[in-house]
């Protein structure tokens, strides 16, 4: 009987996921243009957040490099956008970030704790200033014009990247790699002694997460007409995914998705409603979320559920 129950629960879950996917895939057909644009930017943050959580969730290494990988994608799109078809640009953007992450990972993943966070943060600033120097002094002009792609295409590309990312995340969590990552997060030295190639595992996962950020950057660059190093390598893109993942809760696969979706919606809402105070309100929400939601929304829901069911058991 339990098997039937598990099976039906599983098919229910699969069915509802499929339903959501169909709804998302058909939404440009019937929803207003604004919704499509909003959904695209929600996907952007969801992808960055989830791919951040692939690496930083289980290992506990706080990476502040998302802006670097995202920015590399944006610049790839700006440089190659005219010469190559969009899918190729996206692939190259992802690969460029992948290679950068592999290099950075191999060099620096032996830095632990806060040093790693500081280093990755410095990386973003370093790339930005180098690019700025290159553009101002060598090329003689700052920024670039990006080829614009229509909103629906951007939406579908983001949806595809999102689906691939979710599948990858699911598979990594279920695989040996996922177990290795978790063991690194719990006790790195013990993991190394147990035969996990610690540096290799970390570098590869870091690079996989960077691939998705780069690909997203390559797609989203087409939404802005003009980019420069300040736009592409904005440190906000490094901190936001961390906040969103914590806000959603990293214990479950869907935690970062929910966190990013709600946070992005909130951001859009606040910008339109309170254009002058929105950053202030945003800061307050951030602090409150960190203070009162230690395990994120998912943790909160689980806690509430446990309390309710606990109360029910106590009654009977």
């Amino acid at each position, binding site marked *: 009987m339990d098997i039937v129950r598990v099976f039906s629960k599983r098919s229910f879950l699969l069915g509802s996921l499929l339903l959501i996917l169909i709804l998302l895939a058909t939404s440009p057909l019937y929803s207003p243009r604004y919704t499509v644009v909003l959904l695209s930017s929600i996907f952007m943050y969801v992808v960055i957040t989830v791919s951040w959580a692939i690496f930083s969730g289980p290992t506990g290494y706080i990476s502040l490099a998302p802006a670097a990988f995202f920015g590399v994608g944006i610049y790839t799109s700006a440089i190659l956008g005219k010469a190559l078809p969009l899918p190729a640009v996206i692939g190259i953007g992802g690969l460029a970030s992948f290679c950068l992450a592999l290099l950075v990972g191999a060099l620096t993943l032996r830095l632990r704790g806060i040093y790693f966070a500081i280093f990755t943060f*410095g990386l973003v600033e*370093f790339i930005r200033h*180098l690019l700025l120097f290159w553009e*101002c002094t060598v090329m003689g002009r700052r920024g670039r014009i990006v080829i614009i792609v229509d909103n629906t295409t951007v939406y579908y590309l983001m949806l595809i990247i999102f689906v691939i990312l979710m599948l990858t995340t699911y598979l990594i969590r279920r695989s040996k790699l996922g177990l290795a990552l978790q063991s690194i997060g719990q006790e790195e030295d013990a993991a190394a002694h147990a035969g996990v190639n610690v540096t290799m595992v970390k570098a590869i996962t870091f690079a996989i997460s960077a691939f998705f950020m780069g690909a997203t950057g390559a797609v989203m660059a087409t939404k802005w007409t003009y980019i420069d190093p300040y736009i592409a390598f904005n440190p906000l893109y490094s901190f936001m995914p961390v*906040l969103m993942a914590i806000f959603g809760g990293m214990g479950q696969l869907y935690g970062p998705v929910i966190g990013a979706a709600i946070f992005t919606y909130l951001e859009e809402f606040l910008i339109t409603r309170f254009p002058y105070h929105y950053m202030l309100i945003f*800061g307050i929400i951030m602090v409150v979320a*960190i203070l009162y939601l*230690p395990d994120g929304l998912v943790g909160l829901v689980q806690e509430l559920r446990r309390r309710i069911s606990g109360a029910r058991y106590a009654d009977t």
Partner: protein
Amino acid sequence: MIVTILNIVIAGLLMGGIYALIAVGFSLQYGVARVLNVSHGEFMMLGAFITWMLYTAFGVNPLVSLAICGPITLIIGFLLHRTLLTRLRSSSASLAAFEGKSMLASFGLLFIIQNIAILIWGNAVKGYTYLDSSVNIGGAIFAANRLVTLGFAMVIGFVFYLFLARTRLGKAIRAAAQDPGTAGLMGVNIDQVLAICFGLGALMAGFGGALMSMCFSIQPTMGFQFTVIAIIVVVLGGLGSIPGSFIGGFVLGLVGSIVSHWQPALSLAAYYMLFIVLLIVKPTGILGK
């Protein structure tokens, strides 16, 4: 030639003085209170704006307003730690978790402080002139206010060092830096001492900002770049080492001055280059253990 070298070295030291002050504050907040305070530069901005406001509205001498904006930032920092960070510290499972969370909370604080400042003072660039007569040092010419700034930075740094080394509270702070748990058992009121540390870090930033406003123009969004510089200096000098931060500030000032003599656009990139190489080669910094 000698004048050029003198020019570069003195300019580096002048900038380094302010860097050193901010970095000492940052180092105190990270080294003892374990908060990687991303909003550190905002306290500096507060110090600068309070000084500017007192000077333009009431004609208060900027050196006098050091005594006003210092305590203000101290109290803000102290209260923030007592209300926000103490709570975060007691609810975090481990030190690493607290370090991560407090860093993110301070990122939220950055937004809050910066935007309150924009609401009060507007987003425009502000400035005033004070002591801008020129002084000739062996052929190199500098504004008097920058020399005063350096002098005050040195004095503040030295007094602070004496405070840490000689007073009872300084001893408690050093004990808390080494081992908060044991220090608590020895009768140190840990929550209080950590909050004082955080406040003192904000005080240093406030001093740095007040001094800076004498020489440069100021803006509510200027804080973050100084936070970044503080991070670099502190890594350079060794995370948590106060003398290291002080020396690191001058080293970074010199590096910046040397690089910007040839290629001004590269000075920030040079800072990060130095920073990245240092993190890879010797992550514990110049004076780190």
